[in-house]
């Protein structure tokens, strides 16, 4: 009933049909009322039909009359209603087409936006991949430079250590020579002291001899002076004849004076030399030089010790820096390994992008097929499931990127030699 009411929401056909039916019942009852005696008398009674059979046949005929009567009476009303119904159905079909068309258009628009969104996301992902690619390469180059700088530093330190070693060797050699000289200097005074004393004594003796000789010169000078004086007296006595001789006597006297003065000066110098010699022997001047030489030797040995310390420091420094450099090289190697994640992630994004293309191809089928009169969508979910299965299987073939630096991938060893 509800279905019928839904079909004829505005027509009022149902009450009209009820009315027509009631009218038909009334007419049929009247026909039965008037025709049943005639039927009984003319047909049933002569045929020997019992009373019950008579009643049944009469009722049946009345009912049979009722149906065409009902249809006959209802037709004028039903005809109009059926026309209206036909129109309504046609209209509804038309509306359905319009709605379906609208929905297809909306679905197509939605898919178009969806594809554009996917394209935008894909573009962003491509950009991300390119950016990470560039960054990874820049990082690798920087890391390489870091390593090269560290290696250069190590070479420099090695070279410095070597230079320091060479320098220390040279200094060691020099120090040895200096120590040898110093020792010689230390021993030399002892060796020459006696010789110097001997020489000095000989010199003093010689000086003494010379001083004696000076005395002789002084006496000669005095005698010459006296002689010159006498000659001058005699020349004065001789008058003009002795005048020339007097000049010579004056000159001889001058010479005598100068000789005396020279002798005094020589004597003074020799006495000074003698005194110096004697004082020199008392003071032993080599002792101070020996002390100075000892200090120099001590300083040189201190310097040698300092260089030993420097060399040891360099050695230690070189060992420490070499160890750090080895660690640095290991860390750099590991870092370069980690950078490979960029490629792993890039490939994952590429696989996602491929799956998205397949998915979108299938989704684009949906509005297209909806537009068809005999749309069959049953295979689309199956095909979509295949896309999903293929994607998951493809992912399963690859190692999970973020979890296995050294561990096994999918139960298989990360590194395997056949």
């Amino acid at each position: 009933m509800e279905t019928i009411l839904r079909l004829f929401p505005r027509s009022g056909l149902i009450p009209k049909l009820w009315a027509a039916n009631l009218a038909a019942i009334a007419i049929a009852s009247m026909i039965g009322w008037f025709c049943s005696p005639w039927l009984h008398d003319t047909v049933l009674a002569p045929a020997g039909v019992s009373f019950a059979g008579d009643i049944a046949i009469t009722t049946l005929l009345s009912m049979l009359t009722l149906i065409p009567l009902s249809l006959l009476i209802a037709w004028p009303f039903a005809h109009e209603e059926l026309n209206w119904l036909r129109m309504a159905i046609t209209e509804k079909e038309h509306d359905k087409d319009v709605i379906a068309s609208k929905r297809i258009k909306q679905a197509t628009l939605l898919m178009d936006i969806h594809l554009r969104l996917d394209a935008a996301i894909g573009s962003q992902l491509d950009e991300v991949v390119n950016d990470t690619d560039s960054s990874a390469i820049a990082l690798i180059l920087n890391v390489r430079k870091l390593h090269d700088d560290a290696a250069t530093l190590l070479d420099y330190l090695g070279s410095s250590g070597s230079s320091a070693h060479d320098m220390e060797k040279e200094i060691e050699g020099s120090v040895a020579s200096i120590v040898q000289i110093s020792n010689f200097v230390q021993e030399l005074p002892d060796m020459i002291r006696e010789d110097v004393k001997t020489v000095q004594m000989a010199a003093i003796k010689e000086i003494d001899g010379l001083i004696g000789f000076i005395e002789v010169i002084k006496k000669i000078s005095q005698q010459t002076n006296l002689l010159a004086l006498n000659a001058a007296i005699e020349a004065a006595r001789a008058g003009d004849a002795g005048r020339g001789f007097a000049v010579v006597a004056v000159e001889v006297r001058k010479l005598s004076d100068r000789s005396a003065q020279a002798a005094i000066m020589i004597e003074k110098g020799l006495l000074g030399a003698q005194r110096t010699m004697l004082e020199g022997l008392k003071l032993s001047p080599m002792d101070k030089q020996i002390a100075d030489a000892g200090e120099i030797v001590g300083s040189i040995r201190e310097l040698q010790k300092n260089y030993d310390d420097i060399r040891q420091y360099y050695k230690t420094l070189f060992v420490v820096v070499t160890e750090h450099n080895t660690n640095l090289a290991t860390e750099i190697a590991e870092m370069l390994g980690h950078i490979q994640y960029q490629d792993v992630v890039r490939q994952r994004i590429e696989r996602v992008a491929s799956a998205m293309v397949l998915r979108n191809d299938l989704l684009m089928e949906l509005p297209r097929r909806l537009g068809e009169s005999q749309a069959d969508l049953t295979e689309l979910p199956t095909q979509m499931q295949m896309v999903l299965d293929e994607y998951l299987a493809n992912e399963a073939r690859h190692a999970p990127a973020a979890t296995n630096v050294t561990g096994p991938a999918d139960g298989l060893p990360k590194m395997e030699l056949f």
Partner: protein
Amino acid sequence: MAKTILIVDDSATMVMSVKNNLEIAGFKVETAEDGAKALAKLKGGIKPDLIITDINMPNMGGMELIKNVRALPGFRFTPILTLTTESQADKREEGKKLGATGWLVKPVGGTDLLKIIKQVLPGA
């Protein structure tokens, strides 16, 4: 004398990463961005002591490269390591049958890579 290693990968990041790692370790490194270019280099006279190749590459993939390299005179016993994101047993088996020496799954730590290289290149 430094041993030569040929790296074959279409990813510049991968090539740079492995190349620098190996150069720092003292190896001489040659590179190619796919199997076809690698094969051309080998035919051109390069004689690496080891080949490290990716599997999924344009033009010529790693599997085909291994097959072609093994067919080249003088490369029958050259060690070939794959370095790939592929991890499944059937792929490994396929690589092994074609003549790969070992299977490495990306990413491989730098020191681990050097260790395995020293295993396939004794004295390196």
